[in-house]
Each structure stands twice: as C-alpha cells, then as structure tokens.
C-alpha cells in the first residue's frame, strides 16, 4: 500500500461482506421455499399476491400504534374503548387492526408493563409493524421474563421498586400493546405532537415516553 498507514498483512480480496445468500441454506429455508413454490404452482395464491402481502406487512409502522396512544391520552372515552377492545377501537379510527385479538395493558403510577414472547416472536404487528431483531433474540426472550428489571435497565429504563413490573408473555392467541403513561408537562401539546413522543419501544414497554424539556 502506498499510503504507508495501511500496511498490515491481511488479504483484501478475501474481506468482502458476504451477501445474504452466501450463508448456508438451512433445512427450514429450503422447506419454506418449496412450500411457497408449490402453493404458487397449485394456484393457491399468485406471486403478485405474495409480493403485495409482504408490502402490506412492511408498510405497518409504530406510528399507527402511537396515534392510538395519543388519542387515548386526550380522549377518555377512546382510552376506555381501547382498554375494552383494541381491535374495535383501532378500526373505529381507521387503523386496521386485523382479526388477532389485541389487548392494551396500561401503565400506571404503580404498574409498569412489558411484553415478550418467550416461545417465538408474537408481536402486535398489525399496530406497530415488524418486531426489532432484539425482540426475537434468545437473550431478550429468556431474560425479560426472568430478570425484567435488569433488562429494562439495559434499555435505560429504571423502574423503582415500589412500582410493580408485570411481564406479559404472549404464549397464545392474544397480542399485547403497552399503553404508556402520558408524561408530565405535556398538557398543552396537540394529539399529533403527543404521538411523536410515543416510540415503538414505549409500546413494547422497554422504554417510557419522555416529555420535552422546555
């Protein structure tokens, strides 16, 4: 090398970043691809329908859930509707929440909720999109249920001991979304500005919304 700095002895022709197809093909990837091809060949669905479903799945974002949270903060009757039936409340304001029953778990001064799926990666996708990679990791799934306070602290969320930490393990047919507490000092904020305070992690329960410092 002519720059005189880069004179270590590895071989640059071998240090490329692998493409995703370069990792070994697993049995399950092969099976999934085989089933997909069979379903298309047999006319169960088309490649276009499959592409569209992926596009729809990827179009869901945490902003949909955040809008529901902000509305619940400003509208007590909507908050009650959300706590009674998330799917119906969301549908009523134009957020399609699908058929899988979703429950809102509400944080209070005495209770902090957090969601996990120890068995797989169940997540309120209809309302907040696809789960982050860490949500599906073995570390999160095994540790959140066993040492939630330590994991929350790693996310920068310290919960005082006088507040109950309640972990919701999504083991069956329900999905959960955390309804966080409205931060102090936000009384004058619009619903849209409030929604901007509600991140994905606040609705998983690993974080809490922060009011803006004046």
């Amino acid at each position: 090398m002519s720059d005189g700095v880069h004179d270590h002895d590895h071989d640059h022709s071998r240090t490329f970043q692998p493409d995703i197809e370069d990792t070994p093909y697993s049995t399950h990837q092969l099976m999934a691809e085989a089933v997909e091809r069979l379903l298309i060949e047999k006319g169960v669905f088309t490649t276009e329908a499959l592409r569209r479903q992926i596009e729809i799945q990827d179009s869901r974002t945490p902003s949909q859930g955040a809008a529901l949270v902000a509305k619940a903060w400003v509208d007590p009757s909507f908050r009650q509707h959300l706590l009674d039936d998330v799917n119906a409340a969301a549908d009523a304001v134009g957020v399609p929440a699908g058929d899988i029953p979703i429950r809102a778990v509400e944080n209070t001064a005495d209770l902090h909720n957090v969601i996990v799926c120890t068995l797989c990666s169940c997540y309120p996708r209809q309302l907040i999109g696809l789960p982050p990679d860490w949500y599906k990791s073995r570390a999160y799934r095994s540790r959140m249920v066993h040492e939630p306070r330590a994991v929350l602290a790693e996310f920068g969320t310290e919960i005082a001991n006088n507040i109950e930490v309640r972990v919701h393990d999504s083991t069956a047919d329900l999905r959960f979304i955390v309804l966080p507490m409205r931060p102090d000092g936000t009384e004058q904020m619009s619903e849209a500005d409030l929604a901007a305070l509600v991140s994905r992690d606040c609705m998983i329960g690993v974080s809490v919304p922060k009011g803006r410092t004046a």
Partner: protein
Amino acid sequence: MTSQFGEGDSVQVRLAFPPGHIRTPFYARGKPGVVESYVGNFSNPEELAFGHKDGAKLPLYRVRFRQLDLWPDYQGPEHDSAVLDLYEHWLEPLRAKS
C-alpha cells in the same frame, strides 16, 4: 366447552412434559397462579400444529404469577408478576400444600 375457571381463581399449571408443540412454557409448569380473566375459546395449538383444525376449542385464560413463584432466585420486589395465556387443559385447581 364452557370455562371451568373464573377471575380470581387460584390455579396451578400441570406439571407435565408431553411431547409435541406445547405453548405452555416450561418455566410455568407446576407453578401456582391466579386467573386474571377468561378470554374466550380458541383452537388447541397442540392439534393445529399437526394440521388438525377441527378439534374442540378450548377456554383460554390470562393467568398471573408472582415472579418469586416462577423463579426462586428472582431479583426484585415481591409484587413483580408475569401474566401468561394458558389453555384450560393445562390448568387445575390449586391444591393446598401438605
């Protein structure tokens, strides 16, 4: 199938280890909890996993556990809890400890 348990009932999870696709986590088996609510009847995932879609729907419950009951080494206050969704065939009335 009508639901056998109601809100506030003390239950325990069956201490059983059958093979198959089981959605009752190992860490809850044999543990005591309290029924928080009955949420409806749903197909049994243990049958669905093997393509049997016409089986009887089972009552599903939200069951709350004390973390200290789930994990003897739990680091945290007594009131910390975990709520799991469990199908009725995994629950039995809590037996008094002898």
